[in-house]
C-alpha cells in the first residue's frame, strides 16, 4: 500500500525569502485587528458584562422584529434578542440594570409575566444571571489567566532555549491573540467563558508548533555550525514541514467535524480553535522563525560558555 505523503520528499520551500512581505502583512493585520477590536468592541456574553439571559419557546412562529418591538414596550430596559436556530426559540438578553442586585430579578419576573400574556403558549425558561461584580471578576481573572499563561510559557522557552526564542514565542502569541480577538470583533460571535478556554488552547497549540520548529532550529544550529542563519532556518522549517502539515490537517479534520455536527453550545469554542490552528501554523513559520534572525541568533548561541572560550582562539 502506498502511504499518503502530504509533503513530498525533498520539498524545499524558501520560506525566509518572503519573510519581509509576511512581516508587513502580519503587522498590518495585527494593527487592523487591534484597532477594529477597540473600535467595534467584542460581543461580550453575560459572563463578562453581567445581566440576565432567558430562553423563550413560542407555540407559534414569531418574527424577530415583532418580538423586539413588544419586548421593547415591556419596560425591561435594553434587550438583545437573538434567534436560536429557528423562529420559535429566541434568547433574550437583558442588560444589568443599575441599582441593587435584585433589580435584574425584577426585570426577568416582568418578562416571565408579560411574554405569555402577549404570546399564548410561550414558555420562558429559567435562564442565567450574572451580577456585575461577578462578571467584572470573571473578565479580570480571564485576562490575568491569559497574561500569566503567556508569561509563564515565554519564561519556560527562555529557560529551555535562549532569550531570543522566548521573545519570539511571546511575539507569536501576541500576534495570535490579536488576530483571534479581531476575528471575534468582526464576526460578532459572543465571547463567553468557553471562548477563553479556546484562547488558551490557541496559545497552547501555537506554542506547540513554535516549540517544534524551535527545537529543530536548536538542533540544526548545533549540527551545522558554519551555516548562515537564513538557510539554516529554511532547512529547519522544511524538515519539520511534513509534521506541521500532517498535524494541522489532523486537528482541522477533528475540529471541522465538531463544528459541523457538534452541539451548538461549543460552536464558538470550536471555531476559535479552528481559526487559531490556522493562525498558529502561519505564525510559527512567519513570526517565530524570522524573529530569531532579527534578534541575531548565532550558531554559537547553544554552546556552553567554556566551549565558547575554547572556540575563540581558533577564530582569532
Amino acid at each position: 500500500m502506498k502511504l499518503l505523503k502530504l509533503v513530498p520528499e525533498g520539498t524545499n520551500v524558501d520560506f525566509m525569502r518572503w519573510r519581509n512581505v509576511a512581516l508587513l502583512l502580519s503587522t498590518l493585520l495585527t494593527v487592523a485587528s487591534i484597532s477594529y477590536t477597540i473600535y467595534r468592541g467584542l460581543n461580550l456574553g453575560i459572563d463578562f458584562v453581567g445581566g440576565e439571559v432567558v430562553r423563550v419557546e413560542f407555540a407559534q412562529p414569531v418574527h424577530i422584529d415583532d418580538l423586539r418591538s413588544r419586548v421593547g414596550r415591556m419596560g425591561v430596559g435594553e434587550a438583545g434578542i437573538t434567534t436560536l436556530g429557528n423562529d420559535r426559540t429566541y434568547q433574550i438578553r437583558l442588560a444589568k440594570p443599575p441599582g441593587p442586585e435584585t433589580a435584574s430579578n425584577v426585570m426577568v419576573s416582568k418578562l416571565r409575566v408579560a411574554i405569555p400574556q402577549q404570546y399564548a403558549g410561550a414558555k420562558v425558561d429559567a435562564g442565567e444571571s450574572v451580577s456585575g461584580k461577578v462578571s467584572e471578576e470573571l473578565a479580570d481573572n480571564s485576562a490575568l489567566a491569559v497574561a500569566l499563561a503567556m508569561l509563564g510559557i515565554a519564561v519556560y522557552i527562555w529557560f529551555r532555549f535562549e532569550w531570543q526564542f522566548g521573545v519570539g514565542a511571546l511575539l507569536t502569541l501576541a500576534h495570535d491573540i490579536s488576530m483571534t480577538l479581531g476575528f471575534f470583533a468582526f464576526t460578532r460571535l459572543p465571547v463567553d467563558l468557553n471562548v477563553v478556554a479556546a484562547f488558551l488552547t490557541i496559545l497552547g497549540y501555537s506554542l506547540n508548533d513554535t516549540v517544534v520548529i524551535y527545537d529543530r532550529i536548536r538542533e540544526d544550529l548545533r549540527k551545522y555550525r558554519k551555516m548562515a542563519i537564513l538557510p539554516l532556518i529554511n532547512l529547519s522549517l522544511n524538515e519539520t514541514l511534513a509534521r506541521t502539515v500532517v498535524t494541522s490537517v489532523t486537528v482541522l479534520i477533528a475540529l471541522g467535524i465538531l463544528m459541523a455536527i457538534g452541539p451548538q453550545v461549543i460552536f464558538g469554542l470550536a471555531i476559535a480553535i479552528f481559526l487559531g490552528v490556522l493562525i498558529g501554523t502561519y505564525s510559527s513559520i512567519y513570526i517565530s522563525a524570522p524573529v530569531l534572525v532579527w534578534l541575531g541568533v548565532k550558531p554559537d548561541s547553544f554552546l556552553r560558555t567554556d566551549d565558547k572560550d575554547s572556540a575563540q582562539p581558533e577564530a582569532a
Partner: protein
Amino acid sequence: MLEFPRWKVWLIGLVIAAGMILSIPSLIAGTPLGSRWPGWMPQYKISLGLDLAGGSHLLLEADSADAQKQRLQAMEDSVATELRRDPRIDIGDISTNGGRLSFMVRDPTKVDAAVDRMRNLTKPLALTGNRDWDVQVVDSTRIVLTPTASGTAQAMKDAMSVARDVVRRRIDPSGTKEITVVTEGGNRVLVEVPGVEDPEALKKLIGQTARLEFKLLDLSANPADVQAGHAPPGSEVVPMASGGGAIAVKRRVMVSGDQISKAVQSFDENGRPDIVVTFDSAGARRFGRTTQENVGKPFAIILDGKVLSYPTIESPILGGVASITGNFTVESAHDLAVSLASGKLPVKLNVIEERTVSAELGQDSIHKGVVASVVSVIAVIIFMLVTYGRFGVYATIALIVNAFLILGIMAMFNATLTLPGIAGFILTIGAAVDANVLINERIREEIRRGRRLIDAVETGYHEAFRAIFDANVTHVISASIMAYFGSGPVRGFAVVLLIGVVTSVFTAVYFTRMLVALWIRRSRPRELHI
C-alpha cells in the same frame, strides 16, 4: 530500543488495564449494562457537569454588612451576659452605633473590673497576635469595643464554613443528593444542584436566614412612640411580618433558634399550618424558666427581624415543645421548618449568579457531542492509517488507550465532565496525535538519511521526544494557570487538558514504543514501510 524488559511491558499493560477498568462504570452508566457491572469492581464514576446533565447553579455571596451587624449583636448579648455575672458592675445602656459597642460604667472604680471581663470575651487570633476585638476606655468611664479587621475576616471565614453546611442541609436534608456546595473565595458559596430546573425553590430555601428568637413584649412602651420607631431603653422596635405596624420587645432573647433540635410542619387546632419546634435540653430549660416567670405576659416570636406572632403565655411551657403560628401556607411552613431544623445562616446570602440548564438541552448536547467526537476520532484514525500504515495502527491503538486512560483518571478523581471538558478532551487527542506525527515523521527522515531500521526508529523516538516534552510542558503551564485562575467552564477544560497531557505522553511515546519494539523483536522486518 529492542530491550523492553518484561517488567516494563507488564507495568504498561497494568496501567492500561487499570485505566480501562476505571473508565467502564462511567461509560455504561445509564445503560442496561450499568446494573450488571460486578459490585466488587471499582465503582468510580465521572459526574456530568450541569451543562450536560441539566440543573441549577447558584453563586451566593455573604452580605458583609449583615455579617457585621450579626456579629455586633452576638457580642452585645455576650457583654450583657458577662456583666450580669458581677452584680457590682452597674452599666448604662449598650449602644451599637457606628459598628462599635459602647457602654458607660456607672461606678468609676469598677471600670478596670469591667475592662478585664471584656478582655476575657475577646479571643486571640492565630498567627497575627491580634485579638478579634479592641477594648478601649474612653472618657475614663466609657468602654468601647471595636471589631478588628483581622477579627472581622476570621469571623467571616468561620461564618462561611457554617453557612456552607447550613445551605447543604437545607437543600438536601437527607444528605443523599449529588449536590455541590462549596465555598469560593472568602465570602461566597457555590451551589450546584443537578436535575433541579426551577431555582426559585432553591432561592427560597437559601434566602431565609431563619434567625428565630423569642422575646418578651415591652408593655411599658408608649404605643405612639413605638409606631414612630422609638423604644424605651433595653427594648427595640420590631415590625410585624404581616406588614401592619410594629411592636416593642425587650432586647434580651428568651431563647433562640440555635437551641432548636427539631422542627416539623404541622397544623394547629384550627387546622392552619404551623411549625412545631422542639428545643434541646438547655433551650427547653431556659424556655421553661422564662415562661414560668412570665405567665400571663405576651412574648413575640421573631423570624429574621420580623414578628410572626405574639401569643400570651398561658402556662409555663416545660416540655421544650412550642408551636409557631403565623400567616403560613403549608409550603411556607414546610420551608421554614426545614430552615429552622438546619440552623440559622450565620450571615445573609445574596444570589449573585444564577444559571439553569434544562436537561433536554443537556441531553441533546451530550448526544451531539458524543456523535461528533466519535466521527472525528474515526476520521482522524483513517487519516493516520493512510499516512503511516502500520505506525498509524499503533498511533490509533495509543489514541484509544489514551481516551480510556483520561476517562479512568477522571473517574478516579470523581472529576466533572463539562462541555468545555469535552473540547479539552478532543484537544488532548490532537496533542497525542501530534506526538505520534512528530515521531513518525522523524523516523521517515532518519530512514531517508540512510539509517538502518532499528537505528532510525530509535533515533526517531529519541529526537522527537525533546520537542514533545517541551511542547507538553507549555500545555501544562497554560493548563495549570487556567485551572488555578479560571472559573467554572475554564477550569473544567483545564483539568481534562492536564490529565490528557500526562496520559498522551504515556500512550503516544512509551506505549507506542513498546508496540514497535515488540513488533520488531517478533518479526524482524528488513525494511520499514512508513
